[in-house]
């Protein structure tokens, strides 16, 4: 039952000035911030989960033997032994040239020639397990290596990145908290706006009541009005947020950092972002309705 208290010519029971007053802009800002916070949260989530998947099964074996010939020998034997182990999906002995390249940014080239002795850089074996690198999987490898390469150290790659993940998860929680706070702030803003509108239109409401109008009919008028404002403001806010997200995304893509690339939003994330203004509008309308109904209950 949709009883319209306005008519086809657009006359409204409560005077309307679309997209004027602070309400639509407050909603626009809230929606923009929510969408940005949500996008950040989703991107972080994507980055964490794809990075996790990538390195979850990763194990690094370092041969910490200082003498180069023994180091090479132990590394070779370790590789042979790892081949035999179950649950290994791949491995790679990192070549010396790559190791040199890894330390080059800190120590420069030609250390060996300059000091007369090469810096003992550990040999690295990059192992990929079929399953995750659990402590049990690690100790299996350790046990296998102990007799043949006593100086081997076995680490799960995820352990090294744990602080990074933890930080990212915290940021993600922060993003979620921000979204919740913004929803709360939106509710409060709508509540105040609805009360102000009620006060400003008190006479009209009383007349409608005396002509036999119900609370629901009156509430619907306010709900519609705030719904329009919220939908308009939400659209503007979403557009703003998309501009910000796309340009930020381009910047990050320019960095070429692996984690950030992995944080790209997929289509379901975009869909979720697009739903934000819809949810904000719904939230605004429900808040307006409940506020108005609550206030009207005090009138005769």
């Amino acid at each position, binding site marked *: 039952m949709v009883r319209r208290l306005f008519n*086809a010519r657009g*006359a*409204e029971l409560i005077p309307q000035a679309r997209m004027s007053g602070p309400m639509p802009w407050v909603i626009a800002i809230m929606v923009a911030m929510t969408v940005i916070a949500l996008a950040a949260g989703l991107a972080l989530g994507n980055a964490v989960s794809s990075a996790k998947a990538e390195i979850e099964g990763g194990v690094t074996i370092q041969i910490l033997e200082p003498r180069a010939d023994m180091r090479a020998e132990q590394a070779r034997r370790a590789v042979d032994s790892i081949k035999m182990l179950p649950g290994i999906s791949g491995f790679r002995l990192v070549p010396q040239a790559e190791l040199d390249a890894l330390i080059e940014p800190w120590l420069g080239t030609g250390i060996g020639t300059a000091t007369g002795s090469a810096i003992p850089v550990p040999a690295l074996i990059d192992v990929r397990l079929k399953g995750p690198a659990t402590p049990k999987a690690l100790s299996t490898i350790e046990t296998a290596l102990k007799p043949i390469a006593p100086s081997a150290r076995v680490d799960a790659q995820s352990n090294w990145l744990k602080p990074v993940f933890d930080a990212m998860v915290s940021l993600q929680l922060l993003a979620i908290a921000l979204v919740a706070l913004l929803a709360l702030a939106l509710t409060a803003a709508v509540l105040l706006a609805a009360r102000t509108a009620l006060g400003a239109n008190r006479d009209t409401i009383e*007349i409608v009541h*005396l*002509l*036999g*109008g119900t609370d629901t009919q009156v509430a619907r008028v306010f709900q519609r009005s705030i719904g329009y404002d919220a939908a308009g403001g939400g659209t503007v806010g979403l557009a703003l947020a998309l501009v910000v997200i796309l340009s930020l995304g381009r910047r990050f893509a320019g960095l070429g950092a692996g984690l950030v690339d992995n944080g790209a939003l997929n289509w379901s994330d975009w869909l979720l972002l697009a739903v934000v203004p819809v949810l904000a509008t719904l939230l605004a309308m429900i808040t307006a309705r409940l506020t108005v109904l609550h206030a009207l209950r005090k009138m005769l």
Partner: protein
Amino acid sequence: MTTDGEIIHFDNVGLRYGTDREVLSDLSFTLFPGRFYFLTGASGAGKTSLLRLLYLAQRPSRGAIRMFGTDAITVPRSRLPQLRRRIGVVFQDFRLIPHLSAFDNVALPLRVGGHREEDLTGPVRDILDWVGLSDRIDARPPTLSGGEQQRVAIARAVIARPAMLVADEPTGNVDPDMAFKLIRLFEMLNRQGTTVVVATHDLDLLRKVPDSLIMRLDRGRLSDPTGALRYPPRKTL
């Protein structure tokens, strides 16, 4: 106490605003369907206050009120609209909605009552035509003269064919010709079964409706010069 045929029954009703003295005291009377009542009394006697009780804008401070067979004191808020839709009101200060056109103001009771848009255009135009405002249909109340506003208010009060019409000084702002015309409109509705209650201090008006019953308020108390409030009501002075 018989409830046969009564439309309104007041039993020992009193009203005070805030903590002031009582504005209305010891009101006990019955209104019967299809009759035409005038409520007279000096300015400040309490006519508007009594009408506010009648159109459910106000709850009394004490006493019992029954309207259309319903206890109007204990009736839940949710059922008030139903009762109010059976009552048409001409407010003393018109109370038109300023940003709505004359048409939309008059259409409001029908829209509130859930009438469809295509069904209400004709009746609204007809009634505005009848009160002589067919050329001001789209005018907003602030651009109308006092008399024109009053006629819009009357059109709004009668458009939904209420069981009871309550009018507070409805001829206060119009010339005698228009006053007579409006009273004729009320009489016409009355003949179709609407109970009419008109508050006025214009004694000339009383004479224009020979069959009317008169209630007089004097400082918040009711006297009954025509025996209007007795049952069966005595018709003549």
